């Protein structure tokens, strides 16, 4: 029932302390809803700036987290396309059609357990502030039209929820909930800053160097970034 759909999502998110419940669990409650009611195998919420994913603020587990990480490493995949275009990208058959669209991503081990990927921008008009990523597993059926419609509603509610988290903050002052949920992603930006100095390149090139090096070493960008920040790995010494 389309009329009830929004209410269904909002009711499920409602906490004891007000319409949105506790701010710090909002993003993970959105993910839980996607597992329980949309029947996705994995769900993740990330935030965007200038059409790039800058931080993952919630994920239901490794399956989706690894898949989102691999996409960010290759800068390729449904989430990257959804972030850039502001339009939902749905690929129920990653190993089939998806292979032609994103060959490197789909052949990465992180994608091997994912059957279908569904990326929904959290956007109003031209302004995208985040993404809702859903994945299905190898044994799952693809999401039905009803499930996709419900996921779209979740993405609308998630957009409002993120704005609610940010509301009342001064300019340039990021919601503490979003800031602390994105902790693991900030390390990547710190590492990119360090690598920019090590290689004497612009920070965007440094980030790309981190991604390439992580792929070459079969590590996640987050892992390598941790090693850079703790000075166990340096691009200056490796001659990379």
């Amino acid at each position, binding site marked *: 029932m389309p009329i009830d759909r929004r209410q269904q999502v909002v009711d499920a998110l409602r906490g004891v302390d007000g319409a949105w419940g506790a701010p710090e669990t909002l993003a993970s409650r959105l993910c839980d809803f996607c597992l329980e009611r949309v029947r996705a195998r994995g769900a993740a919420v990330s*935030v*965007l*700036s*200038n059409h790039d994913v*800058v*931080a993952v603020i919630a994920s239901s587990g490794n399956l989706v987290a690894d898949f989102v990480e691999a996409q960010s490493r290759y800068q390729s995949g449904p989430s990257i396309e959804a972030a850039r275009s502001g339009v939902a990208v749905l690929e129920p058959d990653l190993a089939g059609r998806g292979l032609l669209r994103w060959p490197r991503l789909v052949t990465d081990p992180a994608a091997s357990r994912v059957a279908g990927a569904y990326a929904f921008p959290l956007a*109003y*008009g031209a*302004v995208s*502030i985040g993404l809702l990523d859903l994945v299905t597993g190898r044994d799952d059926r693809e999401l039905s039209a009803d499930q996709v419609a419900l996921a779209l509603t979740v993405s609308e509610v998630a*957009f*409002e929820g*993120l*704005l609610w988290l*940010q*509301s009342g*903050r001064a*300019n*340039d*002052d*990021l*919601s503490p909930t*979003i*800031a602390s949920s*994105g902790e693991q992603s*900030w390390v990547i*930006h*710190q*590492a*990119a*800053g*360090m*690598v*920019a*100095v*090590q290689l*004497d390149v*612009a*920070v965007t090139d440094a980030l790309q160097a981190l991604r390439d090096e992580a792929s070459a070493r079969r590590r996640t960008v987050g892992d390598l970034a941790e090693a850079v*920040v703790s000075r166990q790995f340096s691009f200056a010494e490796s001659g990379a």
Partner: protein
Amino acid sequence: VTNLGELAGAFVELADTMVDEFDTVDFLDTLAHRSMALLGGTSAGVMLTDHDEQLKIVASSDQRMHAVELMQLQATEGPCLDAFRTRASVLARLDESRERWPLFTPSAHDSGYQVVCAFPLRLRRQTLGALNLFRAEDRLPDPGEAMLGQALADVATIGLLQERAVRESTILAEQLQRALSSRVAIEQAKGMLAERHGIDLQLAFDTLRRRARDTNQTLSDIARQVVGNRGR
């Protein structure tokens, strides 16, 4: 109402607030003029509350109306204020209103009006203001006209609230984007300073903060400069 086409046109125009160049004053001016034309008013005007919950004049079809609206606000009495307070429409003949509004009535009479109407701009729990419609002719609106007046006020209210909600979301979404991009710049700058000076990230952050304070700039501006200069 004789012209159905004009009626339809008014409703469509009042519902259409999702435009880039939306202007509240123009929109309420349209509401005033459309109501005058459809309901046979001599003058019309709109008052809205500002952020202090005080009514302000936003639109008046003519100078005479503007003066009477001002008079209502100064005397703190009149049809518009009543419609706003009670959230119900007010329809009155001035000949019968001297007790109800002792200050407003003679002043409106002197301006040439015989009948005054006001329709609240309200939706559910919110009241935004009221639409005034005054007649020089001594004839109260019939029930159909009264319903139409309130319907015009209702659709304008929905349009206004929608436009406000969209504008607020857009502003908030842009603020979130800026805050995120600042946060990224700050993390990058911390990394650059830490690497350039061989210090830890906390000390790098303290350095950024001190620079911002010393130069009277925001942390994110300093961070963007550091990133642009690769930590130098």
